[in-house]
């Protein structure tokens, strides 16, 4: 399907709308708006649209994956390695604005873990704990297809840039020079 490497500039599948807060190496908050214009909601389920929990995990994986990658200035290839925990308390429905907060728990040469919380207004939607692997440090020599990585050099980073260009909207804003 997506065999080629002609992918420079190709739009990747982005599942978060923007960053609201970004503290390098510590935490990130992203927003995902759930809209009935998204096609999958028409099939999941007909007459009762709910965002599948797997896509809530995807949104958190993107939020957390960028947090992990940025902490080392995107030098490592980051891949989602393990869904340690995923607990869903509430359905995500069209019109909901999801607030995804990822907090970095561990970061080493090989891997990182985050603790994620998803909220919609005052409601608690999900708790998601994820583990990411820095693939180069773990299986030298084994090639993985580009689309397995959380980010590439293009489109995802535009989300971060857009956030920074957004100015001092939050107190937690910090520069990209993570350690």
């Amino acid at each position, binding site marked *: 399907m997506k065999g080629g490497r002609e992918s420079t500039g190709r739009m990747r599948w982005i599942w978060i709308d923007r960053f609201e807060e970004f503290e390098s190496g510590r935490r990130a908050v992203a927003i995902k708006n759930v809209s009935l214009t998204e096609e999958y909601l028409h099939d999941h389920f007909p007459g009762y649209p709910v965002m599948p929990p797997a896509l809530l995990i995807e949104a958190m994986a993107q939020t957390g994956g960028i947090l992990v990658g940025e902490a080392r200035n995107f030098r490592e290839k980051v891949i989602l390695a393990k869904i*340690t925990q995923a607990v869903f308390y509430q359905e995500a429905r069209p019109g909901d604005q999801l607030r995804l907060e990822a907090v970095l728990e561990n970061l*080493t*040469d090989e*891997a990182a873990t985050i603790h994620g919380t998803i909220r919609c207004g005052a409601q608690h939607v999900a708790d998601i704990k994820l583990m990411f692997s820095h693939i180069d440090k*773990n299986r030298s020599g084994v090639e993985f297809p580009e689309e397995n990585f959380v980010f590439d050099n293009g489109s995802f980073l535009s989300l971060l840039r857009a956030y920074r260009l957004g100015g001092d909207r939050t107190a937690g804003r910090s520069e990209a020079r993570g350690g």
Partner: protein
Amino acid sequence: MAMSRAQICEKVRGTLVDALGVDEEEVTEDATLMGDLGAESIDFLDIVFRLEKAFGIKIPREELFPAENLLNNADYVNNGKLTAQGLARLKSQMPHVDFADFEQDPDLNKIPDLFRVKSIVKYIEGKVSAA
């Protein structure tokens, strides 16, 4: 704050229950992490993270589960088995592991059986008593 072996054991079991999503009854001292508890390679890192947090210790890379880089070395591996040199090396790297059965037939496929719940307990015992 000396911890008894029973306390360490209890905490290790709790850590494995959380990291591997297994039931507490399954986590016997003799259980192998991979064969019995279904751990995969990425789980080992997760376990290390959790143990560090649970016991407030630092676990250096490759100390608790060191086998991986050994296997890429031709001096240590021959014909699917560890050489005498390789075995000696692995034993020195893993003083917390019981090699009695493995030594009879150091087949690489049996390396996963070396990682048992009790070897983690023993490793942690060594760490917290040294602290």
